[in-house]
């Protein structure tokens, strides 16, 4: 096969010779710092990708070179040197990272303990090199078998590129085009892994799908790519992330998630994001620049985003819905917490294209410390979208007097039959509320957690049960030290 030969040659080109400056070491294998066509070829070769995918990456790279980093979001951070980043790093060997939990930041361990996470899981999350094969791997295998019986594809993006090239070609970049924005374009050039899900016609996925079951593959790098396709009449609930803070040296995360629902299909996508937010002085932390979009292509289809964002130093994220099919439904439920020096600019876009489409947006922003939280949303009703409906509610809660909350709603209506509602409130945790709780016997931190959970209830109730309980605890933990 020509493609294979080509690929082999590419591998030789990029790995065989020192002149390209690659560090080829059996233990840790990294592309050199920075981004170039060679690095992209290296990644593609490492993944043993088909030619078309390499081409796709290279085109994205060429486009990216012409694009500029967006500056419109209400976030500030030092300029990113894109040539000072590793774009490919093989899974960590046992020599990297801590040898045991004794070497892990006790602060992190304390959080795990509060979340009730088992020691084994703690080791994995904290990046401790674990030799033993632990339970969840076999659990994952069992689940995969069950999914296969239902005809569901649930695998890594790399596997999908090999095993399901037709599906990949059809859907990759079909919702978030390569040149959609600076970060999605970068992701298209260098994505290293991610998840691929396909639910066949009429199948209701028998369990919540979660990357958690692939925890053994957790170190997938900072440029993840996720594609979920729900064929006619199917349903899937997908959980992304983990409620425990993950040890991570990667500074920049630029993931892309694409969802597609066909006629009468539904995807429920839930995220709990708790990347390292930086320390109390605002040093370090992840830049989380994510593009998430779902296309309701079929009639009466539905996409629902639920997110709880508590981590990262800077978040730039707008999970959106393209409501193309007549009668399709888009939902966005969001809780974004910022503390200390965190900044979050997050929201959604609801594009009403088909007739009788409806969307609901409920956003709860909580700011504490010296943090800044912005809700940025767009509701757009196109000329052909007869009888579109939208309801938007944006509530902000401030803790202390040094943080900020901002709401930037855009509404564009091109069809007179549209009905759009927008409600927004800003409130503070008052001294009176806090004292009331204290007087009844609650400690300060429990009081704040209780009040904040009450504030977020409309969103939290949309999380799957197993997530909701941990997410509730997480809200409290994220705000520790914000009062008193």
């Amino acid at each position: 096969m020509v493609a294979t030969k080509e690929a082999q040659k590419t591998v030789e080109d990029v790995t065989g010779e020192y002149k390209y400056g690659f560090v080829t070491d059996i233990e840790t294998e990294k592309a050199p710092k920075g981004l170039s066509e060679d690095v992209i070829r290296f990644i593609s070769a490492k993944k043993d990708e088909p030619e078309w995918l390499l081409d796709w990456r290279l085109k994205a790279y060429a486009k990216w070179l012409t694009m500029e980093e967006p500056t419109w979001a209400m976030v500030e951070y030092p300029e990113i040197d894109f040539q000072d980043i590793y774009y490919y790093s093989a899974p960590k060997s046992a020599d990297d990272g801590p040898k045991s939990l004794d070497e892990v930041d006790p602060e992190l361990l304390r959080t795990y303990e509060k979340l009730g996470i088992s020691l084994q899981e703690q080791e994995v999350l904290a990046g401790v090199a674990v030799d033993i094969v632990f339970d969840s791997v076999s659990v994952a295998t069992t689940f995969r078998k069950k999914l296969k019986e239902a005809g569901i594809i649930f695998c890594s993006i790399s596997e999908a590129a090999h095993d399901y090239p037709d599906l990949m070609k059809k859907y990759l970049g079909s919702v978030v085009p390569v040149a959609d924005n600076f970060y999605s374009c970068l992701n298209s050039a260098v994505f290293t892994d991610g998840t691929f899900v396909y639910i066949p016609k009429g199948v209701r996925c028998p369990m919540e799908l979660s990357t958690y079951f692939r925890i053994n593959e957790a170190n997938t790098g900072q440029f993840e790519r996720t594609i979920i396709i729900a064929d006619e009449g199917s349903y899937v609930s997908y959980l992304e992330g983990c409620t425990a803070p993950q040890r991570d040296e990667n500074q920049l995360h630029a993931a892309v998630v694409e969802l597609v629902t066909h006629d009468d299909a539904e995807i429920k996508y839930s995220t709990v994001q708790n990347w390292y937010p930086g320390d109390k002085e605002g040093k370090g932390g992840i830049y989380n620049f994510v593009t998430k979009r779902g296309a309701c292509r079929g009639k009466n289809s539905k996409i629902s985003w639920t997110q709880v964002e508590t981590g990262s130093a800077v978040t730039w994220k707008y999970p959106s819905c393209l409501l193309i099919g007549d009668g399709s439904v888009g939902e966005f439920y969001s809780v974004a917490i910022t503390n200390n020096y965190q900044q979050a600019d997050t929201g959604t876009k609801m594009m009403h294209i088909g007739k009788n489409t409806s969307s609901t947006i409920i956003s709860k922003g909580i700011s504490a410390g010296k943090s800044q939280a912005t809700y940025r949303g767009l509701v757009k009703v196109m000329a052909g979208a007869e009888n579109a409906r939208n309801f938007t509610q944006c509530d902000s809660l401030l803790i202390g007097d040094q943080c900020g909350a901002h709401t930037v709603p855009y509404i564009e209506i091109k069809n007179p039959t549209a009905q759009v509602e927008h409600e927004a409130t800003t409130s503070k945790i008052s001294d009176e509320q806090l004292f009331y709780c204290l007087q009844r016997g609650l400690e300060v931190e429990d009081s704040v957690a209780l009040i904040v959970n009450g504030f977020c209830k409309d969103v939290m109730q949309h999380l799957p049960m197993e997530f909701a309980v941990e997410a509730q605890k997480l809200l409290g933990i994220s705000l520790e030290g914000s009062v008193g």
Partner: protein
Amino acid sequence: MLEIKNLHVTVGGKEILKGLNLTINDGEVHAIMGPNGAGKSTLSYAICGKDGYEITEGSVTYKGKDFLDMNPDERAGEGLFLGFQYPVEIPGVSNMNFLRTALNSQRCYRGDKDMAAVDFLKLIRAKAKELDMDPEMLKRPVNVGFSGGEKKRNEMVQMAVLDPNLAVLDETDSGLDIDALKIVAEGINRLRASDKAILMITHYQRLLDYVVPDYVHILADGRIVKTGDKSLALALEEKGYVGLGITEAA
């Protein structure tokens, strides 16, 4: 139970309590009356340890322990309850959840295990019924959309569930119609016991018709200026503060 000696309290740089003395023994019910601005609410907040109420002098001792050394939640754990004049709304938190969290926090403070969910449900339903509260109200967010009377009734349900040793009731009777007043009074009377004590702050004598106090104190200008029994409240009702020789500014 409670011993307050020479208490001076400053709020926002202004001295409100100026050497207040008060001793409450087990089993006693005390009523404090006084003109507006005398420092009645300040006294209740100072006992509970609210932020911004600075104790500049004096002591508050509860069962031999120095209360001033404890946080508000610790004082609650010791068995102190404040019935608020203006109960606070907590959106999104159900009454039931709030009260269960409170009760279990107090139990935890005292070294007891959490109350089992089933037992708690039985307890709160029974107390709501005693105080004639619609059980549906238990599912609603704390005080959100409650009428003034409903809020006060809710305070009584909370008090009944938490079963404090010392209850300080800050104008719990204000804003109540006569039926609600009777229910609140019954709630207070149910708490009366030889090992408990109650301190009622009120503007009006009418509550004292239903909850007969052992002592009535008149608080004016940051001090207790007169102490008597129930007849003092009646005399006050008849003659007013000025008639008893107490001027607003004292």
